[in-house]
């Protein structure tokens, strides 16, 4: 091999084997009765990260200021990292020989389990930030609870992701405050953004049979427990930002968790899955 060092060193394989051996034993992973709900729930976790990460990554190189460009790319990168972990575990639980990449790149929209909130178009930075903040505030509480999951594998992933998501929330809430209480224009844009995405936030807390099953197994918290925590954070930040909570229902739009999406998701997937669809079986 000429001068350029080889990337595919055999160490990688050894490292991966060692990492696999070090993974905690988790009885939930092989629990047949729990499998359909656990798999679905893991897809929800992975798909939220994947689709939000995709949206945020669309900003790359187009941010309003260099520091913001870096922070947005970094957030997207964290979310893609979480996707690899959640969908990796989902694939393992499913046990059908699919990989995290198969789940990301070869499922169609009706099999995606993300919230409608995260697939909404970026709009301006106000919409992007407000959407992220409202999700971050939920994501943070959810991951915090998941670090105490009865599933050691879930708890491990949550602990890793929580470190990064704590920072996401810190950053997005800080920016919401600054821009809400900035100029008249930035205030108006932030309020308009809040009004636009508000009706999509209730879906985060709408529990169904899947949520009930994983809560029952002690894997995940009851979503209703997270709601007051989220409301407190959101209330405080919006107050400080001099923004007012919209009067419309916060649960006007839902269905994403069950695979009923907005029209936008199809286009996201068309773009994201293009290479895997155009060249089936190729390795990249």
């Amino acid at each position, binding site marked *: *091999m*000429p*001068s*350029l*060092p080889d*990337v*595919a060193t055999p160490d990688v394989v050894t490292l991966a084997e060692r990492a696999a051996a070090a993974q905690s034993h988790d009885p939930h992973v092989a629990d047949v009765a729990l499998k359909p709900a656990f798999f679905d729930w893991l897809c929800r976790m992975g798909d939220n990260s*994947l689709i939000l990460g*995709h949206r945020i*990554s*669309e900003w*790359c*190189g*187009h*941010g*309003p*200021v*260099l*520091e*913001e*460009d*870096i922070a947005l*790319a*970094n957030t*997207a*990168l964290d979310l*893609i*990292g979480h*996707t*690899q972990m959640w*969908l990796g575990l989902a694939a393992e639980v499913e046990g059908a020989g699919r990989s*995290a*990449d198969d789940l*990301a*790149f070869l499922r169609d929209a009706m099999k995606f389990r993300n919230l409608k909130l995260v697939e909404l178009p970026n709009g*301006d*930075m106000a919409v992007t930030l407000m959407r992220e903040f409202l999700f971050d505030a939920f994501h943070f509480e959810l991951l915090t609870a998941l670090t105490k999951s009865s599933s050691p594998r879930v708890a491990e992933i949550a602990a890793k992701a929580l470190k990064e998501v704590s920072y996401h929330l810190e950053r997005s809430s800080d920016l919401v*405050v*600054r*821009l809400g*209480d*900035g*100029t008249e*224009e*930035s*205030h108006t*844009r932030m309020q308009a953004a809040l009004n636009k995405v508000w009706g999509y936030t209730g879906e985060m807390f709408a529990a169904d049979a899947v949520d009930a099953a994983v809560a029952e197994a002690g894997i995940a918290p009851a979503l209703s427990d997270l709601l007051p925590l989220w409301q407190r954070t959101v209330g405080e930040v919006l107050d400080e930002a001099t923004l007012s909570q919209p009067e419309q229902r916060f649960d006007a739009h839902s269905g994403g968790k069950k695979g009923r999406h907005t029209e936008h998701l199809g286009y996201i997937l068309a*773009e*994201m899955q*293009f*290479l*895997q669809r155009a*060249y089936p*079986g*190729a*390795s*990249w």
Partner: protein
Amino acid sequence: MYAQMVKSEGMKSPEEMTPEERAFQERVDRGEKIEPKEWMPEGYRKTLIRQMGQHAHSEIVGQLPEGNWITRAPTLERKAILLAKVQDEAGHGLYLYSAAETLGVSRDELMEKLHSGAMKYSSIFNYPTLTWADMGAVGWLVDGAAIMNQVPLQRTSYGPYSRAMIRICKEESFHQRQGYAIMMKMAQGTPEQKEMAQDALNRFWYPSLMMFGPSDKDSVHSAQSMAWKIKMNTNDELRQKFVDETVPQATYLGLTVPDETLTWNEERGHYDFAEPDWDEFFEVIKGNGPCNEERLGARREAWDKGAWFRDGLTAYAEKAAARRAASNVAAE
């Protein structure tokens, strides 16, 4: 290179120099680093601002051709690696703008010059990225060519520039390796993937050679920059080094460099190779390359559409400072 055709001030002989200039040149000759607060010739400062500014602009405009494929990356791992790489490039821009600021020019001033067209960025980023193999070719060839120039610049005479280069070079070798890894997968992949890989090499080979700029062995500007150690090698030296290192890498991939005249010259110990089309290069520099309008347009649009965002943050900072001052007064 990332800084192409940077004009330097005219070269002076030791007898023409003032005592200050002579003392400065002696420090540079001894390999001492020049630090921001220290005396330096005006020409040195101006040339450095042009060069570092152009380099910084190249890093941030350079996000665009690769950013073009982030949402279409074929696997989660490739997506993560590409995001990390493009994020690094933005970070390089930030180090370089900060280093340039130590010379008394603000980032906003430099940005304005980029947007008005008064300052350039590397010609290479005016070429389109058409297939996934281009992510391989850009990392392998473009970051590879950048490394050729940036490794020696770690020893440049200006302290902040040299330190920025040391940080940047650490990341650039990862960039080149991830690009080569993509190329390897493609070149060993399906016939379609191999075709994309060869096509990417065909399109990026000559633009990569152009990155080093036209021959400057007789240029007075380059001679002055080299005496000041803000340019460490001639363009031809770096281009030759790049070709010598890259050709065996292409062979290893099983790809063909699109140059029929390419031959190993036993006597020189180097490859003989064809010059790129310098007319094309000058057209691209003038703004007539395939993507100049898109690239500069995207940067201007990001800046203009981001004005309310930047203004909002500034207004908040002012209000917060006023509130702090008021509460201090109240406390007294």
